[in-house]
């Protein structure tokens, strides 16, 4: 089933789409930042949303997970129009959707296990023991076994991301959203996260939407790539199609990626001071399993 997207990667399948955006317009106040967005994601597909800084990636993702309502248009997830669905239907839908946001967004007052169990407590009436085992299983999957009693402040950047992934997948979502999975991570750690994303699709047939500005990561994981430019969809194509595109703006995005790359302060400082990557991340040094293959 994971092969669905391989059959005809550039063809839009609308019959059984897990994500279907139609005619979406988005504004901040009077300013329009997304124009005429049309997007579908097929079951088992990994769709990467790319674009330069300020192109509207995060805004689009906020609409996809229901944090923002469009000024016009519709957003359907797993057949439910989240701009119109009644509360009960939304509640059922939320059990089938996982969100791993930039920065991880773990609760600093809870240990890792409790953080991962949170969606289960919120959305199910499962026995405590079942919830704990489910959370521990997901720690195994993201290669964080043994970290259950740690507090978020004790985790390295890569571990925070993986804990956030464990929480996002704790209910086996059919649909998973990722915001900038590799932002601020060194290459080995972000490559391990890419492998994890591929593994989740393979083993659980999840449909996954990833927002990233990392070209290398996008090319590694994507079935199709949606390129945003100034709030509009420039193109939707598979990796080969993007690579050979002669569209000047896409070429620009590919070639200027180093200049365009958003970089977090820590990574930039590391680069300026010539510090070795893992050592700049005190928690990642030595003892904790960070760069290991997931």
């Amino acid at each position, binding site marked *: 089933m994971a092969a669905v997207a391989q059959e005809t990667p550039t063809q839009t399948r609308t019959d059984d789409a897990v994500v279907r955006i139609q005619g979406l317009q988005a504004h901040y106040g009077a300013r329009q930042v997304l124009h005429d967005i049309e997007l579908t994601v097929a079951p088992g597909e990994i769709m990467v949303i790319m674009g330069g800084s300020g192109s509207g990636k995060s805004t689009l993702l906020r609409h996809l997970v229901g944090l923002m309502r469009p000024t016009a248009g519709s957003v359907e997830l797993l057949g439910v129009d989240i701009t119109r669905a009644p509360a009960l239907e939304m509640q059922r839908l939320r059990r089938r959707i996982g969100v791993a946001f930039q920065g991880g967004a773990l609760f600093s007052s809870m240990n890792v296990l409790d953080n991962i169990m949170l969606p289960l407590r919120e959305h199910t009436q499962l026995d405590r023991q079942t919830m704990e085992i489910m959370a521990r*299983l997901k720690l195994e999957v993201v290669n964080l076994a043994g970290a259950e009693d740690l507090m978020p402040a004790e985790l390295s950047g890569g571990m925070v991301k993986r804990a956030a992934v464990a929480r996002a997948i704790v209910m086996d979502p059919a649909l998973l959203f990722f915001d900038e999975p590799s932002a601020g991570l060194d290459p080995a750690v972000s490559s391990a996260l890419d492998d994890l994303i591929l593994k989740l699709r393979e083993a659980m047939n999840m449909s996954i939407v990833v927002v990233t500005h990392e070209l290398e990561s996008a090319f590694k994981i994507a079935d199709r790539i949606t390129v945003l430019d100034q709030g509009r969809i420039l193109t939707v194509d598979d990796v080969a199609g993007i690579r050979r595109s002669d569209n000047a703006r896409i070429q620009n995005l590919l070639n200027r990626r180093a200049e365009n790359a958003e970089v977090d302060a820590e990574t930039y400082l590391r680069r300026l001071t010539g510090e070795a990557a893992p050592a700049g991340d005190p928690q990642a040094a030595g003892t904790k399993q960070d760069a290991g293959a997931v």
Partner: protein
Amino acid sequence: MSEAVREVNGNLVVSLTGEIDLDRAPEARRLLLDCVKRSKDVLVDLSAVTYIDSSGIASLVEALQWAKQRGTDLCLVAVSPQALRVFELARLDKVFAIHPDLDAALAGEN
């Protein structure tokens, strides 16, 4: 699901059916733990399971742990390819004895 348990050669064979998801896992859990409490070896037949999610798998893990504590066995029969991929993702294929069918499982028991 009570008719789903039968005794074969001194073992309890539990047949789970359909989708074992967040809604049905508690029922499967109770059934499994009740079987384990009878202090016989338990074979969990998954051949009629069309889908099993992590809550169902967690229930199997808990039942296995209970069985080990009582000194009995719990093994899985006819795990679907879908479920097997999820088992492998969490390395559970190293934890459970998994048999292709009931005959193989019963042969393995004796």
